[in-house]
C-alpha cells in the first residue's frame, strides 16, 4: 500500500478505532503506536521524496513537494513525541480526577483526527480542501480545548470556535475570490483551485482580485496563526486546554496556518507585480511581535505566558517571510522548525511541572530544580533556547532574520530588538524563580516522560551548531519555491 495513503489513513482509522475502544488499558499505547506508524510513514515518504522529487496522490488532489515534505515530517515527529508525553500526563490527570474515562477516549480519538487534518492540510494540492482541513482542525481542537469542561475551558473553547470560525469564513471568501480569478484563466475545469496549476498561470491572474483575495486569506488564516490583533483566542485556548493540546497547537497548528498563508502568498506575489503581500505580512509581523512582547510581562499563568511567546515568534516568522528573498525565507522556515520543536518541548516540561506543583500560577511554582532536576533543567534550557540564546538553533534563525533585516529594512531592526529585549526580560524574569529556589516536592503516580523534552532540545542544539546538508538543501529548495520578488 502506498506510503502516502498509509500516512493519511493511520491517524484516520486509529482515530475512529480509539472512539470505540477508548477506555481500554492499552489505548494510550495504541495512540503512541499509531503516531509512531504515522511518523515512520512520513519519514519513509520524506526519504522517498528527497530521493525521487515531488509526487502527486489521489489524482492531483494531494501532492508532496519540497515545500511541505519536511513540514509533514516535522508534524509527524512532534505528533509522536507529544503522544509519548501525553500518555503519563493524561494518566496523572485521570488520577487527579480531572478527567473521566470517556474524556480520555475523546481526547485520544480527537488527537488522532487532529493529526489527520493537519497532514491533510499540509499535503493537499487543492486550496478548497486546504480550507476544509483547516476548518476540521478547528473543530477537533475545539473539542480538545474544552476537554476539562470547566467554565474557563468552555469559555476558551467558545471564543476559539467563534473567532476562528469567523476567521476561517473570511479565508473561505478569499478562496472563493481566488477561484473566481483562477476560473477566468483556467476555465471551468475542476482544477481551478489546484495549486500546481495556479502556480503555472499565476502571472496572468487578475491583480486586483488577487489583492482582495489575499487580504481575506491573510486575515482569515492569520486569525489561526495568531497575528495581532486577531490573536485573542490563542492565549485562552492554550492556557485552558490540556497541556499536550497546547503543545500541538503551538507546535503544529500555527505552523500549518502559516503554511497556508505562504502557499497563497506565492500566488499573490506572482499575480501582483509588487511586494504588496510581503509588506502586509511584514506589517502584521512587526505589530504582532511588539504587542506580544509587551503582553508577556503581565502574565501570571505559565501556559498563557508561553502562548504569548508563541504569538511573538509567529510574528517574527511572518515578518521574515514578509521580507522575502532566499535568506529571509530560509530563516523563516528554520525558525518555524526551531520554534515548534522548542515550544513543544517547553510545554512538555511545563505540563509535568504544573502537575507536580498542582497549579499553573507562576507565583506558586518554585524550585523545580529541587522537585525534579530534569524537569527544571528542561524548562530552563528550553526557555533560554526560545529566548534566542546561543548555541541553541533559535539564535541561528534569529541571527539570519536580524542580519537580513539590517541589510534590507534597517528601520525595522530597532523594533525587532526592542521586542526581543522586552520578551527576554519578561520571560526569563518569570521562569528563573520557578526553576530555582526551594520548595516541597510531590510524588506523581506516573513517572513523567522526560525523553521528548531533551530529544527536542538536543535537536535544536545540534541545529544551532550544525545544520545537516540535506536539511540546508531542502530549506534552499523551499525558499526558492516561495520565490524571491
Amino acid at each position, binding site marked *: 500500500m502506498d506510503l502516502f495513503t498509509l500516512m493519511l489513513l493511520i491517524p484516520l482509522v486509529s482515530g475512529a478505532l480509539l472512539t470505540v475502544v477508548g477506555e481500554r488499558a492499552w489505548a494510550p499505547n495504541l495512540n503512541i503506536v499509531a503516531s509512531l506508524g504515522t511518523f515512520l510513514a512520513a519519514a519513509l515518504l520524506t526519504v522517498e521524496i528527497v530521493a525521487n522529487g515531488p509526487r502527486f496522490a489521489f489524482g492531483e488532489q494531494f501532492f508532496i513537494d519540497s515545500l511541505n515534505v519536511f513540514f509533514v515530517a516535522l508534524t509527524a515527529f512532534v505528533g509522536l513525541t507529544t503522544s509519548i508525553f501525553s500518555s503519563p500526563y493524561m494518566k496523572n490527570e485521570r488520577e487527579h480526577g480531572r478527567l473521566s474515562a470517556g474524556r480520555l477516549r475523546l481526547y485520544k480519538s480527537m488527537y488522532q483526527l487532529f493529526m489527520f487534518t493537519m497532514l491533510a492540510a499540509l499535503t493537499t494540492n487543492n486550496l478548497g480542501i486546504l480550507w476544509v482541513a483547516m476548518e476540521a482542525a478547528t*473543530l477537533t481542537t475545539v473539542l480538545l480545548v474544552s476537554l476539562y469542561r470547566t467554565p474557563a475551558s468552555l469559555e476558551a473553547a467558545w471564543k476559539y470556535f467563534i473567532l476562528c470560525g469567523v476567521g476561517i469564513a473570511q479565508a473561505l471568501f478569499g478562496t472563493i475570490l481566488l477561484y473566481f480569478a483562477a476560473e477566468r484563466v483556467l476555465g471551468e475545469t475542476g482544477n481551478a483551485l489546484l495549486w500546481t496549476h495556479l502556480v503555472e498561470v499565476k502571472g496572468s491572474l487578475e491583480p486586483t482580485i488577487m489583492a482582495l483575495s489575499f487580504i481575506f486569506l491573510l486575515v482569515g488564516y492569520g486569525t489561526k496563526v495568531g497575528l495581532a490583533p486577531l490573536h485573542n483566542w490563542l492565549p485562552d485556548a492554550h492556557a485552558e486546554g490540556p497541556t499536550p493540546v497546547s503543545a500541538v497547537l503551538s507546535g503544529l497548528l500555527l505552523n500549518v496556518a502559516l503554511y497556508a498563508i505562504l502557499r497563497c502568498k506565492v500566488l499573490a506575489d506572482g499575480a501582483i507585480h509588487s511586494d504588496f503581500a510581503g509588506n502586509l505580512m511584514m506589517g502584521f509581523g512587526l505589530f504582532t511581535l511588539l504587542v506580544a512582547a509587551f503582553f508577556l510581562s503581565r502574565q501570571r499563568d505559565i501556559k498563557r505566558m508561553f502562548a504569548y511567546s508563541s504569538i511573538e515568534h509567529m510574528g517574527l516568522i511572518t515578518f521574515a517571510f514578509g521580507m522575502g528573498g532566499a535568506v529571509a525565507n530560509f530563516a523563516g522556515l528554520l525558525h518555524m522548525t526551531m520554534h515548534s520543536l522548542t515550544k513543544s518541548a517547553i510545554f512538555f516540561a511545563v505540563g509535568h511541572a504544573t502537575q507536580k506543583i498542582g497549579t499553573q500560577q507562576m507565583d506558586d511554582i518554585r524550585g523545580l530544580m529541587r522537585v525534579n532536576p530534569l524537569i527544571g533543567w528542561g524548562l530552563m534550557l528550553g526557555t533560554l533556547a526560545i529566548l534566542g540564546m546561543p548555541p541553541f538553533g533559535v539564535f541561528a534563525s534569529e541571527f539570519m532574520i536580524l542580519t537580513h533585516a539590517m541589510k534590507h529594512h534597517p528601520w525595522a531592526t530597532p523594533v525587532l530588538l526592542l521586542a526581543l529585549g522586552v520578551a527576554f526580560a519578561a520571560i526569563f524574569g518569570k521562569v528563573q524563580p520557578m526553576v530555582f529556589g526551594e520548595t516541597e516536592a510531590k510524588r506523581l503516580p506516573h513517572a513523567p516522560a522526560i525523553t521528548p523534552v531533551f530529544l527536542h532540545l538536543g535537536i535544536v542544539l545540534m541545529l544551532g551548531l550544525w545544520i545537516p546538508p540535506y536539511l540546508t538543501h531542502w530549506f534552499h529548495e523551499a525558499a526558492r519555491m516561495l520565490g524571491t520578488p
Partner: protein
Amino acid sequence: MSSIPLSAQFINLFAAIILLLAFAMLAQRRVLQLIDLFALQGATLFLSTLTVALTTGQAHLYGSAALTLVLKAILLPWILHRLVRKLNIKGEVEPLINIPTTMLVGLVLVIIAFNVALPISQLAHTITRGTLGIALAVVMLAFLMMITRRKAITQVVGFLSMENGLFLAATSATYGMPMVVELGIALDVLVGAIILGVFFFQIRDQFDSLDIHHMEKLKDS
C-alpha cells in the same frame, strides 16, 4: 439593461432578497423569528442556486442546491428551534447597540462592500456579476450581527448566515466551486452546528444561561 437575461434578473432578485433578509435579521429582536428568517434566507439561497443550476446546467450545482435546501433551509433551523425550546431561552434578545444605530452601520457596510466588489464585478464575465458585492455585504452584515448580539445562539445564527453569504458568493457569483469543496464546506457547517449544539448544553450547565457576558472571565487587563 435589457441585455440582461431573465435568469440573471431572477438571480439578482434572489440575491437582493437575501440581503434584505440579512437586514431583517439584524433588526430582529426575537430569537425564534430570527431563526425563521435564517431559514427563509436558506430557502432563497436554494432558489438562487437552483436558478444558476438551471441556466448553466452544471450537474453538481443541483447537488449543492439540494444540499442548501436540506441543510440551510430545513435541518439547521430545525436543530436551532429544538435547542431554543430545550434550553427555553427567553424570547427577547437585547442587542449591545440599539437597533437604529446598527441599521445605519449596516448601511455603511453595504456601501463599502459594493465599492470593494465593484472592480471585481466589472471583470466578471458571468451574467450575475452584481451578486458578489451582495454576498460580501451579507457576510459583513452577519459579522455585524455577531458583534452586536449578546446571546450565544444569536451569534451562531449570525455565523450560519455568514456561511449563507459565502455560499451565495460561491454559487451565484462563480457558478459553483468544485464539488469536493462544496461537500467539504457543507460537512464542516453541519459538524460545526452539531458541536455547537453540544456546547450549548454544556454552557447552560456551567453558566445556567446562554448569555455570553458570563464568558468574560479570561482576560489580561
